[in-house]
């Protein structure tokens, strides 16, 4: 019967582990916002699924191949990702930094067209006042 004491100790240990997990969960803010993560989880899947579909061939093939690829997609998809190349798409994962710069300029153009000023468009990012 002495084994009971070991078992009791063990059961307490398990229970303490769960208490610890609970406290960790509260600490990490999981009880603060009980809505957004539920939505976020759905996005992540969709985002990944989309990448799985489109990214691998893009990385494997040469640039000329992409263009055709993109056009096809543009026709297939109701919301059209038409007039842009896949270089931008790689940008999303944060790979090429020089490409990021290129697209920043494009965005700047877009912003100017809409008469909305953001600083990086005019002074090239980074305001010395805040550094």
């Amino acid at each position, binding site marked *: *019967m002495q084994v*009971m*004491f070991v078992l*009791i100790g063990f*059961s*307490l240990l398990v*229970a*303490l582990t*769960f*208490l610890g997990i*609970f*406290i960790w969960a*509260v*600490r990490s803010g999981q*009880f*603060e*916002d*009980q*809505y*957004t993560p539920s*939505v*976020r989880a*759905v*996005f992540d899947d*969709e*985002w990944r699924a*989309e990448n799985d579909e489109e990214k691998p061939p893009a990385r494997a093939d040469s640039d000329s191949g992409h263009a055709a690829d993109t056009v096809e997609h543009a026709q297939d998809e*109701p*919301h*059209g*990702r*038409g*007039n*842009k190349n896949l270089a*931008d*798409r790689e*940008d*999303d994962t944060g790979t090429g930094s020089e490409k*990021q710069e290129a*697209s*920043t300029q*494009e*965005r700047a153009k*877009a*912003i100017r*067209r*809409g*008469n*909305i*000023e*953001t*600083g*990086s468009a005019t002074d090239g*990012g*980074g*305001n010395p*006042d*805040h*550094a």
Partner: protein
Amino acid sequence: MITTQPLNTKGNNADKTRGAPVCFHCGDACDGYDIAIGDKYFCCNGCKTVYELLSDKDLCSYYSIDEKRRGKSPFDDGYSRRFDYLDDATVIEQLLDFADGDVRMATFRVPSMHCSSCIWLLERLGTLHPGVIASRVHFPRKEVTVTWNATQVSLREVVSLLSSIGYEPFISLQDVAEKRTRESNRKLYYRIGVAGFAFGNIMLFSFPEYLADEGTIDPAFQFVFRYLNVLLSLPVFFYSATEYFSSAWAGLRQRHLNIDVPISLGILSLFGRSIFDIVTGIGPGYLDSFTGLIFFLLIGKIFQKKSYDALSFDRDFRSYFPLSVAVRGDDGEHNVPLTNIAVGDRIIIRNQELVPADAVLLRGEAHIDYSFVTGEADLIRKNSGDRIHAGGKQVGRAIELEVIKNIEQSYLTRLWNNDVFTKDSQGSLRSTVDHISKYFTIVVLVIAFGAALFWYFHDPTLMTMVFTAVLIIACPCALALTSPFALGSAQRIFGNNDFFTKNTDTIETLARIDTIVFDKTGTLTQTGSSQVRWHGPALQEEERVMLKSLLRQSTHTLSRQVFASLAGDRTHEVGEYREVPGRGIEGRVQGVPLLIGSAEWAWRDGSTAIEAGSTAVYVSISGVPRGHFSVPNLYRDGLRELVTALKPEYELVILSGDSDREAARLRTVFGEDVPMQFQQSPEDKLRYVQRLREKGHKVLMVGDGLNDAGALKAADVGVSISENINTFSPACDGILAADRFSVFPRMLAFTRSSMRIIKAGFMISFVYNVVGLSFAVSGLLSPLVAAILMPISSVTAIAFTTISTRLTARRRGLL
């Protein structure tokens, strides 16, 4: 700005004939096919820009996530220096949550976030600007926390970026004046976790003693179990339960027996008696009952703490005001923090900006929208030299003003100097539970001492046993759980009906209301000439001017509404003007005869279809029917029903800041006996409500604008009516969605039912107490009886109140 018509009004003739496309970005109807990319049409350049921005970064999944609820079109006033004040070092410091090295973090409130697409896009800000390191949305609070690299992007640029995609953060003076402190439930969760952990384990360790026959349990096990229980209960007593002791102590110091006093007595005797029993070896103690009690009580507490994160119930004028304003000095124009504005300063107010202090118009054409103040959306035109009150919003070109009063001393803001805003007006009404607990505590103590006295003469050894047993079993856990669960359920049911209350006390107070004070403008009336629609072939510019000229002559409410809805300032002379009450107006403008009024009057035809909820104003030009305006009913839908439902039960009062021109119409709805006060200033309203309360009335104030803020605060309960829940309403106890106005009487009736349910719950808990007490006084309260009786009474209390509240709500059509 480009005006658009909401998508949900497809019945619009103009739409049908032209087949106007729907904006690909925001879903509003487009004016035409002019703004397009490929086969996608946009209602304005702003929407097109956002689309380009997103497609540029391959973020078009945005549109497929939530197709029904499209994006927001960015607000573009053509003024790009709107956010210049965010370059000010003190402002930056106040807005930042965190700054370390180059990394900055700030939390912005984004009221326009409304769907899952918004979350998706806002969390991908880093894709739009490489300087943004991370962005995270807290949807219930409508907040986004952005982390960025200060060498790549500034705070102003982050805000501009958010605005450029249609999610302009709301940054107000209040945000800066007092750093938001979020009440966190974390501590309560920890307490519940610890109590639940101890409760579960102690219950398991107690089973052997309960189930085994006397003496059959191995003494070694008995020893281990009992002392493990003591060990486990220590954190519950010294951590989880501490709030009850401090609350009881605070109550006692104010000579007030609140519900936590008997609870603390019960906890103390439970714990003390258990420790005594275990140490002396008399028995296993009541530690499972003790921890279970704390566990259930804390669950009740968290259930009651339901809060609506996105809503704020304690806003004052500062949350409407911007952080800074442009001041014209000798050396040009600069942004000055609002707190530094002095009398005599020349300020420049641009489109959609608020006038922060009473001022005189120096230059420019002012069209002031006082909707923040009065709830009325009509634009008021001011001329040079006119006085403009603080809180008005300029619509149109920039104007220059001279400040004539300090911000705190302005017409509107002066209201906040009143005492009601400095002292907490609540507390005059003690909750029912506290009221009962006073008598409860006294009765329990009498029984406990009586029983102790009885046993002192019969069997002194049992005296302390019985005394503690009475305190243990009388511990009002069921009593304490009844009201959190009943009121908490009621609060959730109200939430489902778009009536959001600050806390559960509000519901209790609502049940005791005997007088309801209504504001008129914006509360009883629907806001906005913006809802006036033209039906018929589109009006030419010249026709519009002619109609406007004629309408200007009339003081009729409908004329005024239609007049306000027509754009432009030009008017002509009107000849042969005639107004026939109840029928319409006629006149000649530049030789053209015009008729405006009822169908019979203007069209010589009484058989036209009329939209529900609105009045049609017919127009004929040169004797030819031209079309009609549909003007939404002046009073809210269901006002008549509301009055019929409320009048037998409550005293109704109307306070209006307006002139009495509508008194007669209001009389037809409210009857002759309802007191009506007109031309009430914000202070008048406040004082009126205070006087009512001094006479002993329990007052509910229903208002909407900032001018009601004083009255809302002074009343026992202030409910603010809001057309859009996510826009800001003045400090109040509850926010009611305007379209639920007609359901309001049912909700008020429901609060009374809730109180009846609470009382029934009290009866149930008394029955348990009587049963338990009979065990206790006869000295038979074994740990097993306590272990069964106490959780059962708690669970019954929870189940009964929750289920009956929901059933009542269903019967009343609130669920």
